[in-house]
């Protein structure tokens, strides 16, 4: 086993344990903090996948903004978030069954795909992924359209969120 594989396995274990705690823990503040751990694990995976920029975005945007927003929302509504008995509904066993079946199905079906055990080609030397990514996002010959739509989407979400959360006097 190479050191890289060891790092992967440790990260994967941490990520999955944290994700499991996110969906099962009773205290929602803890659940949000476990989410931070999960997100951090995914950031490590991005580093292993030679996508360091995405790892940084994951930490800055996902942990720094989204997860913190969750914690804010939970704190704002915290009276209801304290441990008040079961946080799972009565049909949780059916939910567990469905998700186990989903996992089994995804695992079994992807295993029979012939690209399943593919290994990565070494990154071509001299290729600057980051600048290629930056150019692709704003180049008319690449992905400028999705980029612009995403900005419109964020504007629409902003307008909507402000409208809904705004308290009228």
């Amino acid at each position: 086993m190479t050191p890289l594989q060891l790092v992967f396995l440790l990260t994967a274990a941490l990520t999955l344990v944290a994700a499991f705690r996110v969906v099962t823990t009773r205290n929602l503040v803890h659940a949000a903090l476990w989410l931070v751990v999960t997100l951090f694990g995914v950031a490590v995976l991005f580093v292993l996948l030679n996508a360091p920029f995405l790892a940084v975005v994951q930490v800055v945007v996902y942990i720094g903004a989204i997860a913190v927003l969750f914690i804010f929302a939970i704190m704002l509504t915290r009276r209801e978030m304290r441990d008040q008995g079961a946080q799972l509904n009565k049909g949780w066993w059916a939910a567990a069954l469905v998700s186990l079946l989903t996992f089994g199905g995804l695992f079994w079906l992807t295993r029979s795909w012939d690209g399943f055990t593919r290994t990565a080609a070494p990154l071509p030397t001299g290729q600057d992924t980051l600048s290629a990514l930056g150019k692709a996002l704003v180049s008319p010959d690449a992905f400028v359209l999705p980029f612009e739509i995403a900005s419109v989407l964020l504007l629409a979400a902003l307008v909507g969120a402000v409208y809904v959360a705004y308290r009228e006097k």
Partner: protein
Amino acid sequence: MTQADLYTLLPLIVLVIWACALLLVDLLIPRGRKGITAFLAALGLALTLGLTLAQVSAAGTAFQGMVVLDGFARFVNALLALTGLLGVGLAYGYVRRMGIERGEYYTLLLFSVAGMMLMAQAADLIVVFLALELLSIPLYILAAFARPKETSEEAGLKYFLLGAFATGFVVYGIALTFGATGTTSLSGIIAAASNGDAGLLLTIGAALILVGFGFKVAVVPFHMWTPDVYQGAPSAVTAFMAAGAKIAGFAALLRVFGLAFSSLSADLTAILWTLSALTMIVGNILAIAQTNIKRLLAYSSIAHAGYILMAFVPFGNAEVLPVSVAAGVFYLVAYTLTNFGAWAVVIALEKAEGRGLDLDDYAGLGRKYPALAAAMTVFMLSLTGVPPTLGLVGKFYLFRAVIAGGFYGLAVIGVLTSLISAYYYLRVVVIMYMREGEPERVSEPWLNLTWAASALAVVLISLVPAPLFAWASQAVFALF
């Protein structure tokens, strides 16, 4: 990026810029005069509609094959701009009456229409995904727009949770499709699939995308959210969402399944058959027990998703598919007109605090307001599929196409469930004419125009349906 690229998306670009400008202009319009914002929004939609119809000469892909302009996109976009116009028309008096008249309503509606139009033009799964979000997120807010009314807030939250969940499925499916084919462009997927090197992973991806879209267009068993959301959301929003989200969702289903995944027909035809049959049966049977008109129309909308889904069942049969899809598109037009008409009648009778929505509140309508009752009768007949209405013509084309594809069982189920649906649609008519009551209606010019014009269109077009069907066929045939 060339001029041609921009021209391909011209109506959409104009609409988005108009929406952003409206957001700013709205600040200058004093409270209580937000009707001006509504007029400006309608103007923008009319301009979009005009530009869409004027794009006759342009065709082809743009932005490196991310979006496409063809007859189908033009037809669907025109229908969507019309949907937006009707949505603004219904909202104009309604939001004032309900005390939720705010400029954001119209901005969000325009953003949502932009998302729907993008969906009809998308030729890349990244764009499909973004369009889906751009149409959905404003709808979540619009469903909750009557806040702090509890039912509306809950409808918004419920719609959001189910919608975001569905998005998770769609995007996971897209990721697997990307892995299987190495591309997100629909034409690239077609090429990779025909090489046969995509295999099982593509099938899983397609199945997950189907689950996500099933939630969006409310196909059984992914329909649970529909009655609550349709009932809780402001009626003007429900009318817009019922038509718009269905049109856009089915347009994307056509592009993604009819074209890109056509190699998977052996696996997917049976699934689509089952979903379509289940949706027709469950939607129609559950509708029988409803006593609230909004819930009744919600189940009716589920049932109609089943009928429209029929059009996609023969998607592996290259000869039948164009005809059946043209029939599906025609049915969407029929459903849109009927749907807006019926909701306009509901809005005319709705009172504040959610009163005036029980079927019993329709008693005596035939005697007191004969014209309104006649219009409602037309819509109920059209939803059932009884002559002389557009609903019948739509069903006729659909069943004929499905039979041509050899799916006799599905056609039989379609006819039988239509018979079941007659029970609850005609009950509304019976209550209107046979029972005594003192209904009070609201009379507003735009509202009256909506139900009167829809009723006329539903009857008149059904007398000469051939030109519209020819237009729909021409739009669809260009795809294949």
